[in-house]
């Protein structure tokens, strides 16, 4: 009898029709970040929001920094420093292709690094690579870097988002349609959520996640709602979010208490005549009650800092007692500086939760010593443009997530408008000193100089409390660099 076969056929066909596209084992992940990246080219912005989405997912550098902050091979498989430290010879990986099929070789590397060093190309982290004098190809898969002075940190810096390798053919469209060598390619982007799709031609092992979606929720209430309704699999920074404790208790989320390399500072614009006065800056440093400020974190005590330097670095010196909370001293200093009758400043806050919540305390602290504060909330794009780029602000609260970035104070064009020839000279000396003890001593001087100058109010190291759905594995606990490495993620 043929009937059952036909029935079976129809049933199978119909069933197949319905179930087509239904999920097998989960192989996609939704990652939420608070800050929407201004664009997707990490070589063109200092905003970590771009690196978090693209670095190591879409773009890769010659080296990579792993979850423990160690330098590992990436597009370079090995490297050697010459005896005099003035040459870095890198052997490149073969068989690497960009997402558009272009080949990766020493010419591409030379182009990329030259572009990194070119002031016209607009890489905001260009200063980190000043040691490189010249890039030379030494065969199709060998590159030799001639250095102005030995720089032991260079392999580490080549693993940062600013130094990712780009191809000359796609470099101009990388802002909106990035093309890299990483395990994921970016689906057409309309400026909203970023969809990453596994790249079949990837040189390494195929990662477990087929698809990753980065969503961006600036509104704290909306973020809390998304998390509690389970629309987000991973949010890498929820530390100051009151709801994360409840979510972890509820059982469907896990919280990883990690640390970042981000120094949270109250940045001051030295171009403001009042803030150009060290007495005013010191007054502000004394006016802020750090203990009260840190109460925005629940169940965690972030490490306070006294300068722009990570306590995890061996050269760190403890300057946290340099400006104890002393409103009276603050008022005196202000009076000294001629602001006894008050001073009006604007505090422009970027959207991160620590900045908004911390900003409230800082505004109150400053008002308490007679500074009239106007609080303004900016979107991330506005902050990047108005504050970071145009230095149109008096005060702002932000975290500097690039590791070992004390060198920014040697940059006159930086948004602090801090102009101290002494510090610049010191920093040049730091860069030229390879001997560790001598170098650490110089770094200690640099930290102290910044603290003495009260360039900014150095507050604390930003905790990196990520929250992720139970069953998601491979999440980085700490954030030695700003990156959310999708390649490492998998569902249990």
């Amino acid at each position: 009898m043929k009937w059952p076969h036909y029935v079976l056929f129809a049933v199978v066909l119909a069933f197949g029709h319905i179930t087509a596209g239904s999920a097998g084992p989960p192989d996609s992940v939704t990652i939420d970040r608070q800050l929407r990246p201004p664009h997707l080219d990490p070589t063109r912005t200092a905003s970590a929001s771009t690196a978090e989405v693209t670095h190591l997912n879409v773009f890769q550098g010659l080296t990579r920094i792993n979850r423990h902050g160690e330098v590992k091979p990436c597009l370079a498989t090995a490297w050697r420093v010459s005896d005099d430290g003035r040459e870095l010879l890198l052997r490149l990986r073969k068989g690497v292709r960009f997402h558009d099929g272009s080949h990766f070789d020493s010419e591409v590397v030379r182009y990329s690094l030259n572009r990194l060093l070119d002031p016209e190309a607009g890489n905001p982290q260009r200063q980190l690579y000043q040691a490189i004098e010249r890039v030379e190809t030494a065969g199709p898969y060998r590159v030799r870097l001639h250095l102005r002075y030995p720089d032991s940190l260079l392999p580490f810096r080549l693993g940062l988002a600013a130094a990712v390798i780009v191809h000359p053919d796609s470099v101009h469209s990388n802002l909106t349609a990035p093309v890299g060598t990483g395990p994921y390619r970016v689906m057409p982007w309309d400026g909203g959520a970023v969809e990453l799709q596994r790249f079949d031609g990837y040189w390494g092992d195929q990662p477990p996640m087929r698809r990753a979606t980065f969503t961006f929720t600036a509104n704290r209430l909306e973020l809390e709602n998304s998390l509690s309704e389970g629309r987000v699999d991973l949010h890498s920074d929820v530390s100051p979010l009151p709801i994360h404790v409840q979510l972890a208790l509820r059982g469907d989320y896990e919280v990883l208490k990690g640390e970042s390399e981000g120094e949270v500072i109250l940045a001051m614009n030295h171009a403001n005549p009042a803030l150009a006065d060290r007495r005013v800056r010191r007054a502000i440093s004394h006016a802020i009650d750090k203990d009260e400020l840190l109460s925005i974190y629940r169940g965690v005590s972030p490490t306070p800092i006294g300068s722009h330097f990570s306590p995890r670095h061996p050269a760190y010196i403890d300057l946290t007692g340099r400006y104890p909370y002393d409103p009276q001293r603050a008022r005196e200093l202000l009076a000294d500086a001629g602001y006894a009758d008050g001073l009006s400043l604007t505090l422009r806050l970027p959207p991160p939760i620590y900045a908004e919540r911390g900003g409230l305390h800082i505004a109150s602290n400053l008002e308490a010593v007679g500074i009239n504060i106007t609080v303004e909330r900016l979107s991330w794009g506005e902050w990047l443009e108005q504050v970071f780029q145009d230095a149109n602000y008096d005060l702002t609260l932000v975290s500097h997530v690039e590791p070992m970035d004390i060198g920014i104070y040697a940059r006159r064009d930086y948004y602090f408008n801090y102009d101290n020839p002494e510090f610049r000279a010191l920093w040049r000396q730091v860069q030229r000193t390879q001997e560790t003890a001598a170098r650490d001593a110089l770094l200690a001087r640099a930290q102290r100089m910044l603290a003495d100058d009260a360039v900014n109010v150095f507050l604390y190291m930003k905790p990196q409390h990520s929250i992720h759905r139970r069953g998601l594995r491979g999440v980085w606990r700490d954030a030695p660099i700003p990156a959310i490495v999708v390649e490492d993620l998998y569902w249990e």
Partner: protein
Amino acid sequence: MAVATIGAVALALNAFSEYRNTVSSLAQEKTEGLMAANLLQQQAESLVASGAMLLLANSQLQRREAMFEIQDRVEWIGRLTTELYALRPSARQLADIRHNRGQLQENLSTLDRLVAQRIELWNRVRNSETPSPAVLRRLGEVESRLADVLQENRALSRHLEVAVAYHVAAIREEMRQTVKALNADVVRHERWLMIAAAVVMVVLVLIVTFVQYSVVGRLTRMQRVMRLPRPTPQDIVIRGHDEIASMGLAVRRYVERITANERRITQMNEELQFHATRDALTGLHNRRHFEHALYETFERDPAAPLCLAMIDIDHFKEVNDTHGHDTGDRVLIHVAEQMRYLLPESMYLARYGGEEFAVLASGLSPEHTRSLLERLRRQLAAQPVHVGDDTVELTISVGIAPRLPGGDAARTLKAADESLYAAKRAGRNRTVIRPLRADDQETTQ
């Protein structure tokens, strides 16, 4: 059949696809709309709580905190309204929500300003031992203004809630209607599927019947014919012009060929049988067959009476010598013909050798046998044989022996032979019966 089945499958697939679209629309647009509307409602309600927080703020920090929250809510409400508008562009009431939200935002800003003033005035009151009447009066004014703004705030909030709740209800109703329509669709498609299944069933039964009649039945009939021990071509009925008919035709030809072959073989067997038992010249039984029949007769019934006669043509050698062998053969044929003609059919006749013949007469007495053979002898003697121009006179000598008491075939045969010699010795052209002798009995014992 294929058309019916594909039709049914297509119907099912089409139905499934429709359900999928409807369910997707339910899951995406409607649910998202409902979610957005719900969130909107929730935020509108929470806005009242945030307003209360703002009102209760007794420090600038608390005020700003409340204001941040309000700003976040208002911003979100704005986006949710846009989202809802994108999903339900026709809804006119959304404009109301927008307008309402704007008013509420303005109202909350006023509230914020007033609260900030109140905090500042309070701080002044707290910090001075004797508050100036101007400050107190100002505080009173601010408080009364706050009460007004709060009244307005409550009205606006309620208005917003109601406007949003309208959408929640509307979307819920739309979803209910969609689900209802979906259910009706499912029922309708179920019915169609059942009809399609029934049609397929009926078509199937018809096909099976047709196949049974046109294929299976004919094959079974042919098989039955082929199982017969001797099928004849006429048994195989050919109908139609299809493959089965041509197969039947082939089988029938095959059967015809087999039957013809069989017939030929039987004929050949019969001829062979004939030649094996007959004398080629005279057509009488040959000696081997005669002896076989003789022994068989003896064994079958040892007591039954019988006679054995041996016949020899007298002077046959002379006939051969004088007239040639052909004439001799003609003479032999003539004698055989006469024997067949004159002797009863019950007698077993054979050419025993050269010119010698044998006769087995079962159930006849010696005298009866003799009278019959005597008639033969007289007839032959009276009628010369004409062969061409030759006329051959001939006579025969006959020796008869009855079955000897207890005697076997060989002795009886010998006895008949002896009688023949006796007849020859006595001058030929005569018949001699072997009389029973006293020692016949003894010899057998």
